[in-house]
């Protein structure tokens, strides 16, 4: 009987060790860049984020271009809106979403780890906030909660299932 529990204890310790100890890896990598942000806004649920967003849409990348602000490159993604869930926006229109990261001439800024750049040929659900008009940069949308308001989907969900589609964002973090 004692032996059985001793074996269980050893197994638990072994599992904990395997979990915590870094595996040996002889690979070498060059110029790995990690970018992290201290986000200005943050939400604790999809419902709260939806209430504080200007529009909630489904869309795909139409085109994109980059710009330089100081030493940092930003990407403006033109999103073709295919589905509107909330806000003043029409299906078939193009909206502009700004994200940090991209290439501009000889400048390169890696995207923020939590907020990879919007990819082509991919459907996204987006909760977006419209920025204040700015003489230098114009007006555009930001992803609500920094990165929280963007999820990839295979199909756009029904309206009643919208918030549930963002669950992975909040489940992962909380």
């Amino acid at each position, binding site marked *: *009987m*004692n032996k059985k*529990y*001793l074996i*269980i*204890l050893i197994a*638990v*310790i072994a599992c*904990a060790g395997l979990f915590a*100890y*870094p*595996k*040996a*890896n002889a*690979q*070498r*990598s*060059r*110029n*790995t*860049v*990690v*970018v*992290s*942000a*201290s*986000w*200005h*806004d*943050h939400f604790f649920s999809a419902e709260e984020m939806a209430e504080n967003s200007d529009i909630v849409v489904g869309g795909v990348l139409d085109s994109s271009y980059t710009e330089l*602000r*100081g*030493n*940092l490159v*930003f990407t403006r993604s033109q999103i073709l809106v295919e589905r509107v869930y909330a806000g003043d926006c029409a299906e078939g229109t193009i909206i502009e979403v*700004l994200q*940090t990261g991209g290439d501009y001439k000889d400048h390169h*800024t*890696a995207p*923020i*780890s*939590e907020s990879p750049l919007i990819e082509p040929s991919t459907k996204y659900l987006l909760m977006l906030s419209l*920025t*204040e008009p*700015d003489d*230098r*940069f114009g007006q*555009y949308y*930001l*992803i609500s909660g*920094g990165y929280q308001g963007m999820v990839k989907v295979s199909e756009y969900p029904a309206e009643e299932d919208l918030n549930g589609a963002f669950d992975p964002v909040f489940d992962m*973090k*909380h």
Partner: protein
Amino acid sequence: MKHSMKRIMIVLTILLIVSTSFIYAITPRSYYGNTSKYYKWDSSSIKCYVDSTITSTFSTSVCNSIKAGLTAWNNSDAPAVTFTTSYSNWDVLAEAGDYGSSGWDALCTTSCSSLSNNIYIEDYAIIDLNTYYLDNYLSVNNLWRAICCHEMGHAHGLAHNNNEDSIMNEYTTGYYNYLGSSPHFTAPQYADFLGVNAIY
């Protein structure tokens, strides 16, 4: 005798599981989280250059708060941060700019060039402060200190977490709530020391 041994084994097992889970839950992750990859400095001290975009722009009190935040990890096992006035030999560059409405108050870019046993060795880190948002809080010196402490945490290899008692929370008001009463962290907390000391 057999029964008491059995009870001890059960209690020990439960204690082990609970304590492991607890430590895992409260400890800030390295950048590569659960994949067992880390990045860190391969040195006992690093040099930080505070750019003129900070020193020529902000008041002495804000500059001092920024520097205090950048050196806030010096009583941990992370490399000690010292300041250099020479642009040619920095490890960490701190600069500020008006990046417009970007969604972030500050950014840390870390570049690593080698990997050995899943540990990336850092070449340099750049900390950018976005004055578009932060200029509204020029009188809140501790906010600048908190943000620079947070970003230096990234430079030392820590990732975000959702621990309410950590300077490494992913959003600014999560560790320094300039809009409310708490939290008001300006230095690494217990969980942060656990995290960074685990790396170094």
